[in-house]
């Protein structure tokens, strides 16, 4: 970082924003890679389990309760259910953009940008509310 910052604070802050975005890009990539690997592993196990049985998605019945909440999901996972493993991958994937927002809160705090700490926290609160609110 031996680049000379010639003008105002704004130049310095955009430079920090840039670094923040590079870390975020990596974070998202790792998250997707991890989630895809878990989904792929679960998917292969699922296909090996019943490759010949018929499939029908014409009628919507909703997923069983075990796949809808993290605690019940864990129980199914321990029982060795491959669909539970796919669902864990899906949860990891959903967590990826949320992790990005968490990182933004920290990064803006490091930049001492209170306004954007508040903005990021608001987005985070909305995301968490949607995840934990079960109707």
């Amino acid at each position: 970082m031996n680049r000379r910052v010639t003008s105002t604070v704004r130049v310095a802050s955009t430079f920090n924003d840039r670094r923040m975005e590079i870390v975020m890009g990596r974070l998202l990539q790792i998250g997707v890679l991890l989630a895809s690997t878990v989904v792929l592993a679960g998917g292969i196990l699922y296909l090996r389990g019943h490759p010949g049985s018929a499939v029908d998605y014409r009628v919507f019945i909703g997923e069983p309760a075990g796949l809808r909440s993290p605690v019940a999901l864990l129980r199914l996972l321990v029982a060795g259910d491959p669909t539970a493993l796919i669902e864990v991958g899906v949860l990891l994937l959903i967590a990826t953009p949320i992790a990005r927002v968490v990182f933004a809160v920290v990064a803006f705090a490091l930049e001492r940008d209170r306004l954007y700490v508040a903005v990021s926290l608001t987005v985070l609160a909305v995301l968490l509310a949607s995840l934990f609110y079960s109707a």
Partner: protein
Amino acid sequence: MSVLLFTLLVFTGSFGAGLLGALTGLGGGVVLVPLLTVVFHVDIRYAIGASLISVIATSSGAAAAYVREGFSSIRIGMFLEMATTVGAICGAFLATHMPTRALTIIFGLVLLYSAWLSWQQSRHPESTGGAGSPWWDRLRLSGSYPTETGEELAYKVDRIAAGFATMFGAGTLSGLLGIGSGAVKVLAMDQVMRIPFKVSTTTSNFMIGVTAAASAGIYLHRGYVDPGLAFPVMLGVLAGSLLGARLLVRARVSLLRIIFTIVILAMGVEMILNGMRGRI
């Protein structure tokens, strides 16, 4: 149809949707849901659940490449995500309370609109930043981006309230139909707020993932995300879109765009007719 065959066919179809979506810049979700409902006869609720998951995957998977270009603005993105995430929750709630026939018709209309947008895009005037609203300085939304000559070009942001409202609409659409609604997000930034096109498109990509994550939780609780369907859809769209992003430099996009426009036009008409006849 057996599980293995169904999975392989859905994977192939999703791969194609992701590829076309990346090449044309319209995203995979907009072809994926009609593909699943019209061709594979999947209930639209399962289709939008699987599509939404693939939307998060593509948005996050492409992020690192977009960051490298240096156009995206984290501040504009985060600020507008306040509108898109709340919109997404409203959309997901609407989706769970709306009859599937109505959902199908709305989706068809969005497809027709996307076809029209795609047709228009070739004659798109480049915006280079607005006059600046009195709020832009206080909200620190102005920024700069590198041009081809290597110099930094500064821009200001205009009509923040109107942009914010449009973003709420984009979020609602995303939550309602399980699509990224990147086209509406770009519209809000580029046309309404007068943010330069390259900044708009790259920033929109980041916003898509966060927006989709907001409605994904509700879909999950409601049992819309089926593992057996989400698995080939997510991996297919992701692989297709990553390949599409690589091919983008060499591909003849103009011809592809015409094909894509015709495909979504046909699917839009089909969905509207199916919705009206109640065959979904």
